[in-house]
């Protein structure tokens, strides 16, 4: 098994970052951790990458317990942080050579691996540039190259596209998808961007330290029946009551906006508007998105909490 997280609970003081969290990963695929800030994504990745020991529960990477054999785990994972780890006063090549040495590589193998990684990520021409002179996108690519030198079995990426423009973000994802194709590396990536999450094979949705849903992006979206109607009303609470009394479809009120699931949304819209004359400010429909799934699963948990 590549990764086993068993009943991990982690607290920062009284704040529970992860609560009885369990996950397993066998196949070599891109697994996305999707959730808002504070949902426990970064804590989970810190535990996987041996930066923090689990307070309770167990984390195993490639069969090694991260608390008991951190060195064995470190040799098998590559980590890309949210922030830059390249030395600003060293060139890309010097940075990579140093990092390779930390993984015990030396001599011809080290130089060969550094060269390969630079070619693969398209930074060969920029190898003599100092870390401080790199653009955001280039810097990210150098960071991935750095994490690949020792041919890890699992790559851990913590919100790796933070601060990148859309073009650089797209390039980054192309590089990640290529990695999965060419090296069949297992990749765990955290993100709070829905459009990024769409590119993962499997998604784990996190909220307040709990896993609230898991599945492929298409499977997750299929949990929503039909389409989603987005309705803004003059008085959202009153509108919610009217909808719940007169219609049987699932309705959610999140941040002042009503979300209605419907299999025949185009037919429903006039009926909804008729049901509350003068109340509707705007109304529209769209195919289900991951944002809808997230709203659905998190409002469920919050309803459970209120009950």
């Amino acid at each position, binding site marked *: 098994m590549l990764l086993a997280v068993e009943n991990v609970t982690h607290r920062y003081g009284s704040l529970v970052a992860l609560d009885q969290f369990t996950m397993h990963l066998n196949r070599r695929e891109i697994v996305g951790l999707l959730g808002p800030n504070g949902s426990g994504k970064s804590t989970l990745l810190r535990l996987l*990458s*041996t*930066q*923090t*020991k689990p307070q309770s529960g167990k984390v195993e990477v490639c069969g090694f317990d991260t608390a008991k054999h*951190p*060195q*064995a785990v*470190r*040799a098998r*994972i590559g*980590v890309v*942080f949210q*922030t*830059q*780890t*390249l*030395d*600003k*006063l*060293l060139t890309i090549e*010097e940075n990579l*050579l*140093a*990092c390779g*040495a*930390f*993984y*015990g590589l*030396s001599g011809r193998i080290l130089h060969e691996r550094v060269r390969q990684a630079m070619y693969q990520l398209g930074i060969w021409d920029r190898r003599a540039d100092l870390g401080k002179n790199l653009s955001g996108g280039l810097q990210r690519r150098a960071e991935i190259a*750095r994490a690949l030198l020792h041919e890890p079995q699992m790559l851990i990426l913590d919100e790796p596209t933070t601060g990148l423009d859309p073009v650089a973000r797209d390039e980054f994802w192309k590089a990640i998808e290529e990695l999965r194709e060419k090296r069949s590396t297992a990749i765990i990536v955290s993100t709070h961007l829905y459009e990024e999450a769409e590119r993962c094979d499997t998604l784990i949705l996190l909220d307040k330290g709990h896993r609230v849903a898991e599945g492929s992006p298409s499977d997750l979206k299929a949990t929503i029946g039909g389409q989603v109607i987005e309705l803004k009303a003059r008085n959202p609470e009153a509108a919610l009551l009217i909808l719940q009394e007169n219609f049987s479809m699932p309705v959610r009120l999140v941040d002042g906006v009503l979300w209605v699931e419907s299999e025949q949304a185009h037919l429903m819209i006039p009926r909804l508007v008729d049901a509350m004359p003068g109340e509707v400010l705007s109304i529209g429909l769209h195919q289900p998105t991951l944002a809808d799934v997230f709203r659905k699963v998190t409002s469920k948990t919050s309803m459970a909490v209120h009950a």
Partner: protein
Amino acid sequence: MMLTAAVLAKRELIKFWREKARVAGFAAAPLLFWFVVSAGFNDFARFYGGSIALALMFSAVFSNMTLIDDRKEGFLAGVLVTPAPRSGIVLGKVLGAALLAWLQSLIFLFFLPVAGLKPGFFGVLGCLGVLALIAILFTLVGFLCAWKMPSTQAFHGVVNMLLMPMWMLSGSLFRYEEAHPGMQMAMRLNPMTYAISLLNQCLGIEAAFSVGLSLALLAGWTLALFALALAWVGRSDYATT
């Protein structure tokens, strides 16, 4: 371990060289201090050892201030998630910084004739060794402070509070034999006292302690601080921001 240490030490040297401002500024202040104080007392030999030690202590401690930048810039986090041996990380940072501080202190040796000291070839060789030991000891002090300090400002404060008393109580300012018994107690606890004593032995100046005792205590202090640094780095729960 040695590979990690060598890579990190080399990195310190490259970075030092690329930050030209750091290259220019060293050793000037302690040299000035030595000239002024020695001219004032009209005795250029008496404060010679103490002045080298002062220069070395400060440059050694401050050359490991880069550790705070390494942490803030994320470089350290990048190293800590690799299987690089923790001992190699400590050794590399310390040896790199110690080498820089040691090289800076060597400028003083060119002023031996001005001080009127004639330690001879083996005396100079001994000085090089003692200076290397002091450099390692104080880069370790710098390493430990930098590991715990949140910012370079805090580091400055703590280090100054620590270094000045250590230097003043080392026998550089007044002699051990002439000090108040209470002061002598404090001086005996100070590793710097033995470093100055050793340095004086090598320079052919009267020394307070024997070579064996001084060497043993200096080495003991260095090993103890290295062990402490290792213990701190070994803990994986380490804030990376």
